[in-house]
């Protein structure tokens, strides 16, 4: 039974059936387990639940999950959790082969965006989670906006942000302005509340020989975050979201994009970035920042575990201020890579039960105690965080995340715009900041990628 199913699937997947396809089927058949591709699977008897994550290297978060796993096993004595940890790149690069093979995990993290979640949805390799969401009441835990950003997509995998629920996040991953409060005070500056004041702080830091923004371009992420933050501050978070979700009429070849590119290029010209930024990656420069060098770093809340020791209380994290006064706080803010149930999961019902547990308010407290920002969070949890003696940057990261979720505007990562946008945007920003690309050419370069994708998607 199992072998036949596998064989059929493999032949459908591999175009031009060759010797390699036959070989792959042979290997796949060797590794087959006992599972059923459609049923929810058993919930009683001894169960080993295979849970796969892409948080390798994030020791604080993994310690939090270890506690959650132990608690879940205590509540469900018949369940043993096999927690498989991969690093993010390994997870993303192997997921398609793994989920289309005969032995997928029961629950796995999936990167959002067209290139990963979109293609898995199109290939029917993930299960819709709406019925579980209704049964467990997930809508009351996380806002509709956050659930939409993290895990909703049309059943064709072609539009994002609405439609069927395919994934839910357990922790938040938001990008904002990391600030060294001690340096800020020593320069006689105050925390920026407007974009103009932020730029004035940058100039003042530069004047005093402090690196205004620690920036490492070589792995691309930070290039994208800085550009997106500027665009969001100068226009509005809603416009940026419309662009990323490719709403009708959205285009990168716009005056707003050119203006944001000009701002970024001016910052580079003024020497506001780490000297030699193109040779560093964001981990390199955040390590420098976390060791007390540099006034700001546009980086993620997932770094709360990196800044430790005396620096925990010297650093803080806040949303990049807007150019328009009185606007609600906005930030690049989504869940961390979302948890999803593969179609081939042997224990889908138990996997959903586990997902329900790790996104519960009780689990959120466990994650807070591990210095993490849980996706499920409300203002009461700040009291819990204080009781748990969470201070400094981990506390601020949590408080600002709750602020953005409650009364602000969360916006997805701009590289979700097209499958190739991470490469296109990060390379273009580095060239822009190195004066090898004009702001106008920058906008055209982005639109060439974006326009082609939107046109092809239809």
């Amino acid at each position, binding site marked *: 039974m199992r072998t036949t199913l596998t064989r059929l699937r493999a032949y*459908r997947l591999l*175009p031009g059936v060759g*010797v390699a396809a036959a070989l792959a089927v042979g290997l796949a058949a060797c590794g087959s387990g006992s599972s059923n591709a459609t049923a929810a699977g058993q919930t009683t008897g001894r169960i080993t639940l295979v849970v796969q994550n892409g948080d390798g290297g994030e020791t604080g978060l993994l310690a939090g999950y270890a506690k959650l796993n132990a608690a879940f096993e205590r509540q469900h004595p018949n369940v043993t959790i096999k927690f498989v940890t991969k690093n993010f790149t390994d997870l993303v690069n192997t997921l398609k082969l793994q989920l289309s093979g005969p032995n997928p995990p029961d629950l796995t993290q999936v990167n959002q965006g067209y290139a990963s979640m979109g293609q898995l949805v199109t290939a029917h390799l993930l299960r819709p989670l709406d019925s579980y969401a209704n049964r467990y009441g997930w809508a009351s835990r996380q806002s509709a906006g956050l659930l939409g950003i993290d895990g909703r997509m049309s059943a064709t995998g072609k539009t994002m942000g609405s439609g069927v629920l395919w994934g839910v996040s357990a922790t938040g991953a938001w990008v904002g302005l990391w600030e060294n409060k001690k340096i800020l005070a020593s320069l006689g500056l105050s925390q920026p509340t407007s974009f103009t004041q932020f730029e004035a702080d940058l100039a003042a830091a530069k004047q005093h020989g402090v690196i205004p923004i620690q920036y490492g371009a070589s792995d691309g992420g930070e290039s994208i975050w800085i550009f997106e933050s500027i665009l969001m501050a100068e226009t509005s978070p809603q416009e940026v979201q419309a662009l990323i979700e490719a709403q009708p009429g959205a285009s990168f070849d716009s005056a707003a994009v050119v203006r944001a590119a000009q701002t970024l290029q001016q910052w580079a010209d003024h020497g506001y970035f780490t000297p*030699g930024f*193109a*040779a560093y990656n964001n981990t390199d420069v955040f390590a420098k920042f976390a060791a007390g060098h540099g006034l700001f770093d546009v980086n993620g809340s997932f770094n709360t575990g990196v800044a430790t020791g005396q620096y925990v209380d010297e650093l803080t994290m806040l949303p990049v201020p807007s150019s328009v006064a009185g606007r609600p706080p906005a930030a690049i803010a989504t869940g961390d890579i979302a948890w999803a149930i593969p179609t081939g999961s042997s224990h889908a019902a138990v996997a959903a039960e586990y997902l329900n547990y790790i996104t519960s308010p009780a689990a959120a407290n466990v994650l807070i105690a591990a210095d993490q920002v849980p996706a499920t969070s409300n203002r009461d949890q700040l009291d819990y965080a204080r009781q748990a003696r969470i201070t400094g940057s981990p506390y601020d990261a949590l408080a600002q995340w709750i602020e953005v979720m409650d009364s602000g505007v969360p916006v997805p990562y701009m590289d979700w715009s097209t499958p190739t946008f991470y490469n296109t945007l990060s*390379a273009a920003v*580095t*060239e822009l900041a190195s004066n*090898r690309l004009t702001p106008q050419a920058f906008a055209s370069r982005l639109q060439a990628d974006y326009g082609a994708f939107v046109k092809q998607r239809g």
Partner: protein
Amino acid sequence: MTTTHVTPAQTELAAARVLRVGAGRTQRIRGSPPPGEPRRIGYLYVLPALVLYVAFVLAPFVHTAILSLYSWDGVTPAHFVGLRNFRDIFSNPVLLSAFEHAFILIIFYAALPTVIGLLLAGIMARSPVRGMSLFSTVLFLPYVIAPTAVAVVWRWALAPDGPLNQLLHDVGLGGLAKPWLGDFNWALPSVGLIGTWVLYGLAMVLFLAGAQKIPRSLYDAARIDGAGPVWEFLSVTLPGLRNELVVVLVLTVTAALRNFDTVYVATSGGPGTATTVPSYLVYNTAFVVGSVGAAAALGLLLAVLIFVLNSAITRLGSQ
């Protein structure tokens, strides 16, 4: 001199001995092809290797060739697009520049190590150096280190605040310091020089081995004819190393064109696309972007390019 020549009488004697030994089996052997000629049983001997070769080299190659004609994201059904993937390569400036970078890397990965290796081998072969095996071991070491480790170490050494720039500042050449791997003009040569550092030891060891089998009498003859060190190198050492030269060039040109690990670790293809090479794009297109067909086309083109260049080198070497 006397022992190497075999007289006709000795040959007859040996033949007679063979006949005597094989006398009992003469009848059976009659009618089969002469010993040493190909027989069908030979296929059985090569079968294990052949099965592995077909399964792990030929079949994936053919499969890649087939995939290159499809548009496929790796999971949903693929559809046939003919040669579109190849047309896209030739109309995409980033992809074309990746091949251009690979050719520039040949200078650093193949030409420079060959020249340095030849020079070192020429010097060492001319007059025996005390502790030569130690020298060659030390110079060969970079080739033994895992490429990823090499790239990590050089990434550190070439960092904007790394030891190389510090050294330049310390000796008063601070003006030359730059973010080597983050500079649009210097990143590619920097990656290339990492390759030179890794590969010149390999070239040198192969050349040294070759130089040892050049008869000393040729050097003596050249010296009697009044040849200086340069002329001696050009007229004796270099021609004697022709086969080694072919091997070194095939190995290093291949290393240049399929370079992935150094670029992946040291620069991720950046800054911008300044160090993007075909192998890196194959990985990126297949696994990050999810266009397996386009990646297969790129990989196939790279394989063909390596094959053509290497046959050209081998052909030139045998002329």
